[in-house]
């Protein structure tokens, strides 16, 4: 019984941490001046936030252990691996598109003004 409470506590910590990182990504998206800096916030915060929440879900799903549940957990792990590879590539593609479309990155002086 006590083990279940400990697992629940871990799940809650993981999910809250994930929510915090998703929140920072969103605030970065709204606050940063140009879109290269926005990508700095979203490319990292979104990846780690989503991964932490999905890890929490895996831990919660292992409560009652059976073969079917274990396979579902492996599938969620597959989503985690996919996000881990896909998000940086999308970030890189958008950055490169901006570079090719001649969007000038802001420099230190532009921000000071």
């Amino acid at each position, binding site marked *: 019984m006590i083990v279940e409470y400990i697992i629940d506590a871990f799940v809650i910590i993981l999910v809250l941490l994930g929510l915090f990182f998703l929140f920072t990504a969103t605030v970065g998206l709204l606050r940063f001046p140009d879109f290269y800096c926005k990508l700095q916030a979203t*490319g*990292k915060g979104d990846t780690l936030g989503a991964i932490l929440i999905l890890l929490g879900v895996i831990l919660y799903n292992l409560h009652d252990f059976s073969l079917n549940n274990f396979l579902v957990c*492996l599938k969620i792990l597959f989503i985690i691996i996919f996000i881990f590879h896909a998000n*940086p590539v999308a970030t890189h593609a958008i950055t490169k598109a901006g570079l090719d479309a001649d969007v000038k990155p802001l*420099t230190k002086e532009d*921000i000071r003004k």
Partner: protein
Amino acid sequence: MRREIVTFLILFLLWLIFSGMFDAFHLALGVVSCLIVTLISGDLIFQNERFTMNHIKEGIRFIKYLPWLIYQIILANIHVAYLVLHPKMPIEPIIIAYKAKLKRDISKVVFSQSIILTPGTITMDIVDDTFIVHCISKKVADDLFTGEMEQRIADVFERENTKRSL
């Protein structure tokens, strides 16, 4: 031929995980599906290469590299959270060119991916062996120029090649 067999085995393992039904009908469907995928795009995973034992060794070394990467990712997120939530937003973006010594495609890709995931840097372009990197502050750029990450990746993926050349 060998790479097609390895592709088929990987896909079939994935089918067993995804399907979750182990009767003859679904297993036969799995074999047929994996054969179709291997037929139409079996040469894509190991392009221009033969599957050798080195791939397995590299995989094991890559898994050993992962904990350090995850530690860096957490550092990156705390850094970004600090920048975002700071009322004055102390950013000073700068673009640098970083010349790497990496030779193989896979090590370049892993290096670029790691740069995107670690504190305050994004790869903008890869021209031959020069990485154009957007850094969010000067300190982050200095961290990249110490070359620790490049050394670790070279350890993972280029050990066999350097031995052969020596």
